[in-house]
């Protein structure tokens, strides 16, 4: 008889993966390290904040198991839970650097960002992704999506970054859940009541056939352990975020105005031939592109008028030894879901091409070229085909490229004159070592639109707005965002739509200062934990959790 893994709760799952008697839980429930952000919103917390951290052995190998409890708040990642994961992965990295082999295993049963701690969730997830990328140089980072919740949202972007993804057929994997797509793009885009359609599209059979997951195993503890152990032994790596040319070639052959079903897509995927794609710099033109804050500032900062690019939504150019990259709207784009500046399939892959090329070009240079991200992304693209093809891989490719660049020594600097929302921000912005933002009321910075967040968390918009008053991470504005402590600088005398010469000069200066500030500093994302605001309040719970994990790491 089979011994179900899926039926187990998060803690039992973690213990089930390690050899009998070898598991040791770190920062367990007895420490009652609850999220400080839930009770103010009248939500019941959990003593482990939904993350179970275990050190133990699997077939004699040292493993670190991170198990997300899908039953608590849908497995959403908040500040405390995120910090727990990051701290554990950082210690694992440290040990591996020291030559102590330790293999991280992440059990993903998660809706992604915990919407009740929205901006903390985004920060945490970007930090998880950063460490995963660093770790992959030493050991494979194995992901397991057993199912019930499955893997959604920002953690699906993470799943694409992991070395190898094992699933059961009880799981689904996607960036945006069908309900959110229905809310954002209408029921004709994705009917969230159509379970057949959902499972046919997001279920793991389709996912494994189209490169989104690597292996479907039976829902049986033994089978799952064997699969993980084998993946570690064989150092499996799907290199999922290194397939930009493959996907760009695929996208060349798909007509986004026509329907595409799962079967047709499987065939396209199987027959796709990878062609090399080039992404030349943006050039001046006589026709203005679709207006946006991002485009405005990109053009001002690079001096390119009416910037035009082969990929109309992605602009990049080198100016004064700095590489500027922006994702911009294009009202006539052939991908309907990115026409307002959303980060879609093509955008992520194109950005990853640009960034990886810079890394490659500067490979042997002592001083690495700074990369400046002009951030104005209203969200990721919400669409059926986006999910079918796997938009999270695209976003992951961009995020991974930025993280690699930073880890290689490139200063990666955000300049935020526009929106910074959700998966769009994770792909294009959150892997930077310094964030500069304008103190402008027009800026939205969040994990999900109010309408969707209300629908998913089953609250009214009024209740949601009430919550933002108590919890800064729930808010949608840059002023509350500053309270989280992640900003390098909030610029008060420049407004988003007014890029006059003085303003541009000031921003240029700040960017240079920010670049300067990274010199001789670690290439990780710790800056965010160490600003005065972060230490005082913004990341207090993060820092506490980090301390506890570090203390308990070697008992």
């Amino acid at each position, binding site marked *: 008889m089979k011994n179900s893994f899926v039926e187990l709760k998060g803690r039992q799952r973690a213990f089930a993966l390690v050899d009998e008697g070898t598991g040791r839980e770190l920062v367990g429930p007895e420490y009652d390290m609850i999220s400080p952000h839930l009770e103010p919103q009248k*939500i*019941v917390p959990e*003593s482990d904040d939904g993350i179970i951290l275990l050190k133990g052995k699997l077939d004699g190998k040292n493993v670190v198991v991170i198990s997300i409890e899908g039953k*608590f708040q849908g497995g959403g990642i908040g500040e405390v839970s995120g910090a727990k994961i990051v701290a554990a992965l950082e210690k694992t990295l440290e040990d591996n650097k020291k030559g102590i082999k330790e293999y991280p295993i992440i059990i993903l049963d998660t809706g992604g960002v915990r919407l009740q701690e929205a901006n903390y969730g985004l920060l945490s997830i970007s930090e998880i992704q950063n460490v995963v990328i660093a770790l992959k140089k030493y050991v494979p980072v194995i992901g397991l999506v057993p199912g019930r919740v499955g893997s959604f949202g920002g953690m699906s972007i993470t799943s694409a970054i992991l070395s190898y993804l094992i699933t059961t057929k009880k799981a689904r994997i996607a960036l945006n859940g069908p309900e959110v797509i229905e809310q954002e793009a209408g029921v004709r885009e994705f009917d969230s009541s159509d379970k057949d359609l959902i499972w046919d599209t997001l279920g793991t059979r389709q996912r494994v056939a189209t490169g989104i997951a690597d292996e479907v195993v039976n829902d049986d503890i033994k089978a799952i352990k064997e699969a993980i152990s084998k993946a570690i032994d064989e150092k499996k790596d799907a290199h999922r975020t290194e397939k930009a040319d493959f996907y760009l070639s695929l996208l060349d052959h798909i007509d986004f105005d026509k329907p595409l079903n799962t079967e047709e897509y499987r065939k396209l995927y199987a027959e796709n031939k990878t062609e090399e794609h080039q992404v030349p710099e943006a050039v001046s033109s006589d026709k203005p592109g679709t207006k946006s804050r991002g485009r405005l500032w990109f053009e001002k900062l690079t001096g390119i008028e009416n910037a035009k690019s082969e990929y109309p939504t992605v602009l990049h150019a080198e100016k004064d030894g700095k590489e500027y990259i922006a994702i911009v709207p294009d009202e006539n784009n052939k991908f309907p879901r990115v026409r307002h500046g959303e980060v879609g399939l093509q955008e992520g892959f194109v950005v990853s091409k640009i960034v990886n090329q810079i890394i490659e070009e500067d490979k042997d240079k002592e001083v690495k070229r700074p990369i400046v991200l002009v951030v104005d992304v209203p969200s990721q693209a919400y669409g059926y085909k986006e999910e079918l093809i796997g938009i999270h891989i695209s976003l992951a490719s961009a995020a991974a490229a930025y993280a690699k660049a930073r880890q290689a020594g490139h200063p990666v600097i955000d300049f935020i004159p526009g929106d910074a929302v959700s998966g769009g921000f994770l792909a294009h912005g959150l892997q930077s070592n310094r964030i500069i933002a304008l103190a402008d009321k027009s800026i939205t910075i969040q994990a999900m639109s109010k309408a969707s967040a209300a629908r998913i968390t089953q609250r009214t918009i009024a209740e949601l707005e009430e919550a933002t008053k108590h919890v800064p991470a729930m808010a949608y504005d840059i002023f509350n965002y500053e309270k989280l402590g992640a900003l390098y600088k909030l610029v008060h005398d420049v407004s988003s739509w007014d890029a006059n010469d003085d303003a541009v000069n000031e921003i240029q200066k700040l960017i240079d200062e920010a670049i300067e500030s990274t010199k001789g500093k670690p290439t990780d994302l710790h800056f965010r934990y160490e600003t005065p605001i972060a230490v005082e309040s913004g990341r207090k719970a993060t820092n506490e959790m980090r301390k506890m994990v570090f203390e308990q790491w070697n008992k």
Partner: protein
Amino acid sequence: MEKLHFTYQNTKTIEKFVHVGVVASGDLEVLLYPADETTVDIVTGSDGFKEVWKNVLNRFFDRYSLKGKFIIHDFGATPGVVNLRLTQAMEALNDEE
């Protein structure tokens, strides 16, 4: 959400920390620490059930007079599920490590 606090005069000393349950819909977690006084601190997602909680705890402690500090995070469990988790915690006290 509502926070409730109860104290009891219980007799049976406990030796170790135990934890059962999960804060899932219709479920709860119970944290039980050794302590000299018996206190029960509850955070519950369902308002208006103070009387029911009191009844559940009275009945439980009538049968198992455990002395310790209880912390309960409840996500709308029925009295039956609450009693299940409490009695599971009681059982876990007797488990070998």
